[in-house]
């Protein structure tokens, strides 16, 4: 969401039905032009297969069950890696945001580790885990850890100290203070971390699956490349995009639900 988007609009009466369709005009036009370019032979099918060919390849893979199985494997890896890395990142973010001692003990170390691009660890990870499941999970978890950690920590540290003082004056216990002031105050920042993490999650998984895997979407794409099945390659890429979009939409829906108090999410 751009900043401009979130600004309240002045005037501009809305046409509710048409409004929902507007975002789809451009993608549809692109697919249409793509199809035309392929049918007229302007783009040779060795370079880029027509959307209809991609759809057909998808249909065949769907019938054979291969598509669902690979999507499921990738989805499973993404979720488990995300839960592990995100969970640990969240826990460290909370601990270091709330406790000076914990922050002194671990923050510098974590900030140093952060400077290692996690994908640079792939050769090492393959040596450690082979092309086992744990290799992919490890990489995804590591990639997801930092955005969640950093944004949780930032969120907690930037909660308005005047509100915290108010909570103390009104006799909130530490638990209440966390539940009613600190956590809700940190939530917008935590969501920023969540959205970042989801992006990194897919990126890591794609790379890990194309390099070291024997199942999953990335593996399917690499196999297809060996057999020159370019329609399947394009299909895998599109599915990755779709899954990424889905994850993003889900996190946005959650955000709208929990941040309904935020002026940016209030609609008349």
């Amino acid at each position, binding site marked *: 969401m751009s900043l401009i988007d979130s600004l309240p609009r002045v005037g501009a009466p809305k046409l509710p039905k048409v409004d929902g369709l507007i975002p789809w005009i451009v993608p549809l036009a692109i697919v249409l032009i793509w199809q035309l370019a392929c049918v007229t032979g302007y783009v040779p099918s060795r370079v880029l297969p027509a959307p209809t060919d991609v759809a057909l390849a998808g249909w065949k893979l769907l019938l054979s069950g291969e598509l669902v199985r690979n999507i499921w494997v990738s989805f499973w890896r993404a979720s488990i890696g995300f839960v592990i890395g995100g969970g640990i990142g969240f826990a460290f973010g909370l601990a270091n945001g709330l406790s000076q001692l914990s922050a002194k003990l671990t923050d510098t170390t974590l900030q140093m580790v952060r400077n290692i691009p996690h994908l640079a660890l792939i050769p090492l990870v393959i040596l450690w885990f082979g092309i086992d499941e744990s290799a992919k999970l490890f990489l995804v978890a590591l990639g997801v850890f930092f955005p969640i950690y950093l944004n949780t920590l930032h969120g907690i540290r930037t909660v308005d100290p*005047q*509100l915290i*003082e*108010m*909570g103390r*004056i*009104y*006799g*909130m216990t530490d638990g209440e203070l966390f539940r*009613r*002031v600190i956590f*809700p*105050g940190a*939530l917008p920042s935590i969501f920023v971390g969540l959205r970042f993490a989801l992006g990194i999650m897919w990126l890591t998984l794609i790379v890990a699956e194309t390099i070291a895997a024997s199942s999953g979407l990335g593996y399917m794409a690499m196999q297809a490349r060996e057999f020159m099945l370019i329609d399947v390659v394009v299909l895998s890429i599109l599915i990755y995009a779709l899954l990424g979009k889905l994850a993003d939409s889900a996190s946005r829906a959650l955000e709208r639900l929990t*941040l*309904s*108090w*935020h*002026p940016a999410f*209030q609609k008349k």
Partner: protein
Amino acid sequence: MQEALRFQSVDAEPIDRADIVVQARQLRRGSEGATRGLSLTIRGLRKSFGDNEVLRGIDLHIPSGQFVAIVGRSGCGKSTLLRLVAGLDAPTAGSIAFGEQPRAQDVRVMFQEPRLLPWARVLSNVEVGLGRERSSADAQARAERALVEVGLGDKRGEWPAVLSGGQKQRVALARALVSQPRVLAFDEPLGALDALTRISMQQLLERVWRDQGFTAILVTHDVAEAVALADRVLVIEDGRIAQDVTIDLPRPRRRGSAELAALEGEILKHLLEGSEDTQ
């Protein structure tokens, strides 16, 4: 005018005529009012931040139920004094004693910023003010009553973000009032409001103070506000109480009346002289 103006030396016995005025009013108000406000005695109060001696010996007695305004130049230590009274900071030396041992919800503060939780509806924000009694069965009913008291009964389900500045400050007032405090300290609560909203908020403050009979301590930079609302105006200078003026005018006071203007002028003159000395 002469009647109304009474300067008092700082070292005088703390029991002064203001005590009698207040007691008389409380008799009129009835026995319930008389037990509400807590009296307050401050002795030799000092507060330093490092080398910066902000308060250099404050001696003060505030009788139960009195409305005291504190004025002084920016940075003279008004907020510091208020925070000490509210127990938010610890004094460097000296003591603050209440007439009775206050419970936590007996002393409340209101700040210049409303400090509402943006993620809680107006009513839950008021419920925060109940402190430990938040989970009692009548919590919601009490919060609703406090909201009605400040004239915002119909906003109970709104998010704070949609309220105007004055409305937010009224919610903050309801939150401070809901536990029926016996001492209410205000740190420039109206400082950020426009002139008209200020005046209606001042009237609201005066009304709830008269209804509930708490001891009110109002820090303000607006001398006109101080003389319009308070029984007594304290001027702080160089970390001490430089002037202690009893405002013995009947209520409700008419804004812009000659007596108020004269008192305001007197106090302002003193404040300005003080600032010339230091230049």
